[in-house]
């Protein structure tokens, strides 16, 4: 099953090491293949280095694609992650 959704990058410093780690840790629990796409480029969402080099600033729209049997659940969980308001995070900034 293929599912796509649009997400807005909530983190002040973009997808830096902390959110990237959270994303990868979450997605690795699922079988689906997962990708972000931005500026017509596709990035493997389970790879730290791809996320870190992806040009996604705070407030920017990015597209997420999940391919696999658990795709639906992946998207739901990822949406939660993107919507989480992280107080400590905003205080620490990008550390």
């Amino acid at each position, binding site marked *: 099953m293929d599912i796509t959704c649009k997400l807005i990058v909530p983190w002040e*410093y*973009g997808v*830096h*090491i*902390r959110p*990237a*780690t*959270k994303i*990868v*840790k979450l997605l690795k629990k699922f079988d689906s293949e997962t990708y972000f796409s931005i500026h017509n480029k596709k990035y493997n969402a389970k*790879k*730290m*280095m791809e996320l*870190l*080099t992806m*040009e996604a*600033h705070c407030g920017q729209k990015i597209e997420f694609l999940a391919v696999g049997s658990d795709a639906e659940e992946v998207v739901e969980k990822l949406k939660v992650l993107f919507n989480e308001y992280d107080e*400590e*995070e905003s205080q*620490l900034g*990008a*550390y």
Partner: protein
Amino acid sequence: MEIQGGVAVTPGITVGKAFILDREQPIIKQQFIRQDKKSIENEKQRYLKAQEKAIKELKKIEKQTADTKDISIIFCGHRLILEESQQEILHKIEHHFFKAEYAVHHLMQTYQDHLSSREGELYSRRLSDLKDIENRLLKHLTCSKNYSYKLLRKPIVIIAKELTPSQTALLPLNKIVGIITNTGGQTSHTAIVARTRGINAIVGLGEGTNSIFADDTVILDGFTGNVIIRPTQKTLAKYKKLQQKQKKSVASLQKIKAFDTETKDKESIHLLANIENPSEVETALAQGAKGVGLYRTEFIYVNHSHPNEETHYNAYTQALRKLANRTLIIRTLDLGADKDFGLFRTIEDNPFLGCRSIRLCFKYEHVFRVQLRAILRASVHGNLSIMFPMISSVEDLRKAFDVLQSVKNDLRKENIDFAQNIPVGIMIEIPSAALTCDLFVSDVDFFCIGTNDLVQYTLAVDRCNENVASYYKFAHPAVLRLVNHVIQTGNKHSVKVSICGEISKEMILAFIGMGLKEFSLSPYSILEVKKMICGMTLQQAQRIAKRVLQYTNHEDTVKYLCKKVKGIEKNQVLL
């Protein structure tokens, strides 16, 4: 692979496994491995081991920071990056034949280049994450630091920038067969330690040490100053053979212990030992020393940051008891310059020309007094002499005597016993003292020529600066004339003269010819020197000395002396 240009401290061949104690963050060069299956597999395993260690370390940090989730997750991220880079790094090793360090650096560089092309602080943070990851991996690839010394098996070759006295104190010296350093020369701390302990060392190898990796098989060629790393079977066999031969000659040297140290024409020469620690007395005696001619007391500061009177007293008493009435010449604290030990840290532009040694003792007189009190108190336990270092003028000596006298008065007032008539001498290591040594003859019992510093001050060469190492010429006519002058003056006025310092047997031959009867040496050089003395005559040495004083340069002198020593050793039938 052979690295040249090191300075051999002790002759001999040593083979061991490299242990990287410290090094500057290496500049990663483009380096390749051999393109065969075995080399590739070895390199992959080496990388995987380092990665495993790095991951383990990161997990530990994650755990330690677990209560601040937003910190600990960063290290989790580092770990994820490490894990996902594995495949690419192994690929670079397997298909591009990159050395593991280079493979890591290459990949991280690619990431970094990618990020650097973006602007803003956003990415600079990520860059520092990557740098951190790279450094962690490289650390585990190149350094052995996280090993426990206890786990190490003989034979170890220590690789370091330069061994500091405090590092040396922690090393398991019984497991170490060799030391290789980036900096330093014949008289650096590393060299002195190595000689005293009978460890082979090659110092001043420069950046060459960066090519040595943890657990590499390393051969130290103490005859040439070269280091061979990761030798082929053939090379290794060749050196092992040489090593065997050398062991045999060491064994034959032991036989000479039974003989008196005298020339063939029955001239007695006294060979004493230099020590840094009372525990070395046994070694010295086992090597045939007739006593201790130089006890470098400043090394008390290596094990005790604030030694008190009792610390000093116990050390001296211990040494005296072990020596059982043999001579012990205690040199008062010679701190500063290359032996600062972080105590009186004053930054000086020219530490060797600065407030060091006796000057430091005058400045911090209370420290000096503590030592003198301890020496005087210990004097009742044996045959002890006091020696003041770095004396440059009659005033220096006067000042030192005043303090000594005042400490003696204190002890008398307190009814504390000390030996009467303790011999007092001075180090002759500054040209001014050498030239005017006649001014001291009525006040002191002996002169001890400190060759290391005398060479440095006569020739204006910082002996710790490898840039001027080639100017450090111990057989320079100026040095020889000064030494000769001191010997003649001392002998004329019946003031005993000796030499302590790192000198070769070739120079000893010349100095015996000039009239010197006493030498204080590293314990492990004693038998070698004794062997030469037993094979020569005083007359022969006198002829040689006469000739040596006519030479105009260091090189000719050394060449001539080497030839003479070889001749003496060749004709030696007694062994």
